[in-house]
């Protein structure tokens, strides 16, 4: 069994290398041409190359997701846990996606209480935030997204979850279309998209949430979703026009989706 796992792991590593190798000169040469390395370009050439680069980056991201999932499946995902500030990682992820949020007219904010440092894999946790935020952005057309971080022990009585102890509790909430309760378990499975099929509206591989779940669980945490929806079109929600404007509480949409996950303060990391 151990030999099979090693064979699997070696295969995944080899595939990761082989798939990413041709992408390397593709992406680099595109950047070079677009940056004027070989001379100036006209507007149409720039537009064409931007399209190619955008799709090359998308392809690279998809390959990364597939490889990550394969590694998790083979029990070969490695983690390097270093003490740090989870809120800082959340803010970094948010700042990466804020331009996309602005384009859609959505707010994207991070709210963090006083948090102790804890040991976690910064790159992988960044990936969790990006995946959850990306998911929220995809399914939210009005209002916005908020990341809230606090100690689980600060959660009011009646709202706390048994067994959370003193973990850090992260909520990624959006005012989007929501997820019906019967789909809550399904969405964390690989390749499951609620609008999958020939007429699907939203792009994506359906791997982001499965990967986020794998990373959180490898840190000894839990991840789950709270949501009501889908939301009716005539719910009377005011459209927020500026991403920097925090809406008043009374105008917040009552429905949407919140992904919650915990990060233990005491590392119980396992190879995932």
């Amino acid at each position, binding site marked *: 069994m151990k030999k099979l796992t090693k064979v699997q792991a070696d295969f995944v590593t080899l595939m990761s*290398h082989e798939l990413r190798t041709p*992408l*390397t000169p*593709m992406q680099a040469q595109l950047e070079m041409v677009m940056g004027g390395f070989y001379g100036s370009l006209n507007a149409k050439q720039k537009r064409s190359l931007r399209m190619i680069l955008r799709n090359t980056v998308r392809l690279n991201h998809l390959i990364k997701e597939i490889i990550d999932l394969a590694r998790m499946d083979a029990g070969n995902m*490695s983690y390097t846990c270093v003490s740090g500030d989870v809120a800082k990682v959340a803010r970094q992820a948010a700042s990466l996606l804020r331009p996309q949020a602005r384009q859609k007219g959505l707010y994207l904010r991070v709210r963090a209480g006083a948090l102790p440092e804890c040991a976690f894999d910064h790159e992988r946790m960044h990936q969790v935030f990006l995946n959850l935020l990306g998911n929220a952005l995809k399914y939210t057309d009005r209002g916005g997204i908020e990341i809230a971080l606090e100690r689980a022990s600060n959660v009011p009585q009646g709202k706390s979850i048994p067994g959370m102890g003193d973990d850090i509790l992260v909520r990624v909430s959006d005012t989007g279309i929501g997820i019906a309760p019967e789909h809550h378990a399904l969405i964390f499975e690989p390749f499951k998209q609620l609008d999958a099929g020939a007429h699907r509206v939203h792009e994506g591989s359906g791997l982001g949430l499965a990967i986020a779940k794998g990373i959180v669980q490898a840190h000894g945490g839990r991840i789950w979703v709270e949501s009501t929806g889908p939301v009716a079109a005539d719910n009377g929600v005011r459209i927020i026009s500026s991403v920097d404007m925090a809406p008043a509480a009374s105008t917040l949409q009552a429905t949407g989706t919140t992904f919650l996950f915990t990060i233990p303060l005491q590392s119980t990391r396992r190879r995932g």
Partner: protein
Amino acid sequence: MARIMIVDDNKDIVQTMQDLLRDAGHTTAATYGGKDFLVKVQKFHPDLIVMDVMMPGMDFKDLLEQFLQLQLSAAIILVTVVRFSSDEGVVLRKRYRVVDYIKKPFQVKDLLASVKKHTR
């Protein structure tokens, strides 16, 4: 500027890196791995080596071990798709003078920034 040797079995990656590094003012040489690298590096005497970790037919650590025996002073940047553990990182740094890692596929600015940092 610096003398930089590129070690990768993919000719397009080698060409791309050479174009970028020469444009940045460096002198470059290229090899596609293995024995060719061990011969050429002794003639070229690079300040810095940019090396892919997965080349067919050889383990990069075996190659680094053989390079170590040549007692040349070049620092090494590894181009990789895998993450090394902390323990592996310590060995790579202390024993083989690996000073940085670049993920594949790399962004142009990341390659140039890493080379600039380690060729001052």
